[in-house]
């Protein structure tokens, strides 16, 4: 089964030759496609152990046991763990979904899988919230929370509505662990296209369908721009990061769980538009980085950034530029020719495949 991931990963477009990569990722994150595993084997390092995994610590003991019994060899490849009530526990590794059967064997036949019980969910919730639902009100409202290690946990249940807004969730029926990855150096291939010269940067839009490594790429861009890129004689710049969904920096109790660079200021869990304007005023960034724009107020914020001479690097969901033109707000941005570079990602040759890089003004390929 593991073969699948390797063949998948060997095509990965993420550069593997960056020297910083050897310092690599937290042990727990590994990389999304199995490099880490190959590396572990190659360099004779000890294989991953469950105790070094931050996400493992916040699983219910019953689920932990299943992971230990069935998935020990695949630890670094797990991308998602899904608990849905009265349905089999699912582990997603790349494009593959696995479960652990009742006799504790790993299997692809999901119908044989161990079912998730109410107690499993309740326990998981208690552990996730540290017995303190009040401490995570906003998180429950939004349906996700960030755990140590910067991983995200999504939650669904029955919404409790007050004044027409979701107040919280109750009768939790599903929990999804999304294991965040940090791949130092994965931005190496796109960086040359972001630099206008060794001082200035292009306004850049990353376009990508879900799960193509958009956030991972953005994170590494932030890190490298913030630290400076020696290869291009680019000194580090102040980076302002508006991390509305706590995904990029993975802030946990005020500390970034990923490497985001030494000149990066993070506004965590802050609405993008508001956050961008706050950062422009408060931290004088040269670069603003944020995830998934598309609301009307984002336009205003980006206009402000333009006025302030701040470069914006951001992402949007989508397959191609034509699709973006269907959406009013993005269409406006494209008409402004706000973005000077548009990078389109896909999963065609594994997570993080760079389909093409366009000049935002002429819409011609530059790579």
């Amino acid at each position, binding site marked *: 089964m593991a073969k699948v991931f390797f063949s998948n990963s060997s095509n990965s477009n993420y550069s593997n030759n960056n020297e910083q990569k050897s310092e690599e990722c937290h042990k727990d994150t590994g990389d999304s496609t199995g490099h880490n595993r190959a590396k572990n084997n190659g360099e004779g390092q000890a294989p991953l152990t469950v105790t070094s995994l931050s996400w493992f610590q916040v699983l219910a003991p019953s689920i932990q046991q299943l992971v230990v019994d069935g998935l020990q060899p695949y630890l670094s490849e797990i991308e998602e763990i899904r608990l849905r009530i009265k349905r089999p526990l699912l582990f997603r590794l790349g494009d593959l979904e696995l479960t652990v059967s009742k006799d504790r064997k790993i299997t692809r036949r999901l119908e044989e899988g161990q079912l998730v019980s109410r107690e499993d969910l309740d326990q998981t919730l208690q552990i996730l919230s540290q017995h303190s639902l*009040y401490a995570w009100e906003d998180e429950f409202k939004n349906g996700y929370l960030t755990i140590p290690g910067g991983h995200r946990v999504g939650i669904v249940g029955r919404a409790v509505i007050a004044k027409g807004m979701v107040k919280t969730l109750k009768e939790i029926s599903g929990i999804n662990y999304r294991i965040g990855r940090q791949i130092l150096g994965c931005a190496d291939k796109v960086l040359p296209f972001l630099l206008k010269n060794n001082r200035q940067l292009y306004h850049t839009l990353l376009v990508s369908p879900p799960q193509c490594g958009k956030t991972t790429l953005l994170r590494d861009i932030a890190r490298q721009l913030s630290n400076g890129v020696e290869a291009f004689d680019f000194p580090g710049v102040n980076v302002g990061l508006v991390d509305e969904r706590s995904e990029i920096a993975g802030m946990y109790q005020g500390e970034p769980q990923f490497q985001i660079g030494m000149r990066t200021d993070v506004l965590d869990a802050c609405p993008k538009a508001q956050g961008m304007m706050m950062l422009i005023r408060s931290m004088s960034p040269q670069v603003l980085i944020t995830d998934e724009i598309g609301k009307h107020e984002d336009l205003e914020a980006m206009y402000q950034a333009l006025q302030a001479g701040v470069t914006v690097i951001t992402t949007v969901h989508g397959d191609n530029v034509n699709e973006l033109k269907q959406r009013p707000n993005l269409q406006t941005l494209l008409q402004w020719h706000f973005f000077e570079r548009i990078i389109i990602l896909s999963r065609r040759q594994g997570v993080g495949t760079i389909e093409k890089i366009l000049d935002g003004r002429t819409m011609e390929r530059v790579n």
Partner: protein
Amino acid sequence: MLGAILILLGCSYWGWKISSLYRKRTELFRFLQNGLTMLEAEINYTATPLPLALERVGRKSNRLCQALFLQAAHILQAQKTVSAGEAWQTGIAALAAEVPLSKEESEILQLFGYSLGGSDKEEQLKNIALTKKQLFIVQKKAEEEQGKKQKLCQYLSFCLGAVLVLLLI
């Protein structure tokens, strides 16, 4: 003569010891209210999760009620599957080992534990406010009791000592 003095001193000390328990109890209820006020700030202002919040409150609390908060925090930190209510329960047990609590008093604390952590901020604050109010009433009662019985205990034990001395003479 020396024996008589020793008996007198011993009995007085014993009486003082018992009477000091009354004093301790009133102090305890006052400090518990302080502790809950601190917990209120941890929940309301910084939204600190319970394991850490209880520990912080415990460290800042008076020695008398420290056991309650620290024990509960310790249990929550060490055992993942235990509920906040159960952890609080062990805290109460640790507290009761140091200062005698009546059934009514430990029930107030127990009731507080049942909804600890299990709801949103607003409900937690209501729960704290209610418990503080109840603890205030208990404190008043304990003060009355202290006023009445503290002196009584001291006199009685001294008299008992004196009687013993007289009998022995």
